[in-house]
């Protein structure tokens, strides 16, 4: 597959996550309003930079709920638009800036999928602004390196953690209301060997992901499929639906690097 096609697929897959995330926020838009948990009125005071001179009045205007809702609606439309034709620098740039806008408006409730999505759109918009085929290749290499960093760091942190190495992290998280399902958590608690196997699957696939990409065929496909299965599992059982799309969007970059520099 050509780097142009893989570059466009990166944007399109990430846009599915943006579509879902934006629609979810629009459905729950009361959280964006005054006294909502994602209200910017108090959150803005967290940083002196945001409170200085002309910045504060500008942000007070930009952070109004009706502007946030308008931007979310535009994000929905643009995440559909990138499927209808060749994604433009303006479309992708807007998706990047509006993602940062939401992070700036309130830092609470964000997760790694928001960060990865912002990185994907920022780097892709820079690639589109430069506009050369080489620039798109550079962006794909960067995204492949970024997803390797993400998995490696996450795997390393888990490897250092006793609760992960013992497998207890799996049942403990599965029991929580935020990321778990009580009935599954109860069942997993009765199956420590299963938890141990699942924990080590996560640790090893994350930690070894960058090395897997250097492995001969079919090693790197196994690394990629393991990662995809992990995100499918996290979406189905933990409700982390946007993680799946955010990380899946970087896989075309991995395929590009592998096919360009692999053996």
């Amino acid at each position, binding site marked *: 597959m050509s780097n142009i096609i893989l570059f466009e697929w990166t944007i399109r897959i990430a846009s599915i996550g943006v579509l879902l995330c934006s629609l979810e926020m629009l459905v729950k838009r009361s959280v964006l309003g005054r006294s909502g948990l994602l209200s910017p009125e*108090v959150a803005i005071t967290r940083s002196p930079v945001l409170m200085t001179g002309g910045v504060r009045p500008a942000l007070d205007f930009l952070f109004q709920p009706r502007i946030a809702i308008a931007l979310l609606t535009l994000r929905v439309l643009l995440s559909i638009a990138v499927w209808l034709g060749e994604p433009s620098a303006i479309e992708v740039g807007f998706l990047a800036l509006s993602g940062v806008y939401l992070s700036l408006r309130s830092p609470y409730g964000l997760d790694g999928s928001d*960060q990865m999505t912002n990185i994907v759109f920022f780097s892709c918009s820079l690639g589109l602004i430069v506009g050369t085929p080489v*620039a798109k290749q550079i962006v794909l290499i*960067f995204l492949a390196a970024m997803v390797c960093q993400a998995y490696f760091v996450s795997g390393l942190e888990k490897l250092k953690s006793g*609760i992960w190495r013992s497998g207890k992290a799996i049942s403990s998280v599965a029991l929580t209301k935020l990321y778990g399902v009580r009935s599954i958590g109860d069942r997993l608690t009765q199956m420590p060997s299963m938890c141990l196997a699942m924990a080590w699957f996560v640790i090893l696939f994350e930690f070894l992901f960058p090395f897997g990409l250097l492995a001969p065929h079919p090693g790197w496909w196994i690394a990629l499929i393991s990662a995809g299965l992990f995100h499918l599992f996290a979406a189905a059982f933990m409700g982390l639906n946007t993680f799946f799309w955010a990380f899946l969007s970087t896989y075309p970059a991995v395929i590009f690097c592998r096919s360009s520099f692999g053996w």
Partner: protein
Amino acid sequence: MGTQDWALAICLAAFWLVSAYCQHKSKGERYVRSHDPFGIIPYWNFFAPTPGTWDYSLLYRDRLATGNHTVWREIQLCSPRKAWDGIWNPGKREKKALFDIVTSLMQSATEVEADRLVLTVPYIILLDYVSAMPRPYSADATQFLLMAEEPGSGKEPFVMFNSHEHPL
């Protein structure tokens, strides 16, 4: 490669290196993150080294004009997991926000003096949120409470934090 391609490569490589540097907690990492109000530099330590194994509950009660208090009422944010949450999960952001705010409040409690905690961002956000909840007309002050429970530990839920009473 043209000049613009080189500039792009250098920018992205620099970002990758800064991100890699900031994955390890240090003075330098805190300094860099304190200059990143956009939150662009990622955290990649998903659920590690210690995953969130606690459930938090937010409750509030009001003081009435008579001086009596209402019963504690829980604000229900966590609905049971639904089969389609893996595709469509609009409630997750609010639940995660509460988790982040509670974590941030507990962090602040270890860093600032008790009488200054009421001035911290997470405390004011929770107070603001609770103040907007439905309540009796005669209520003149409100108070919130955070309970914590570690499911599967066999331990009873306990009161983690009790706010002051604040006039409405």
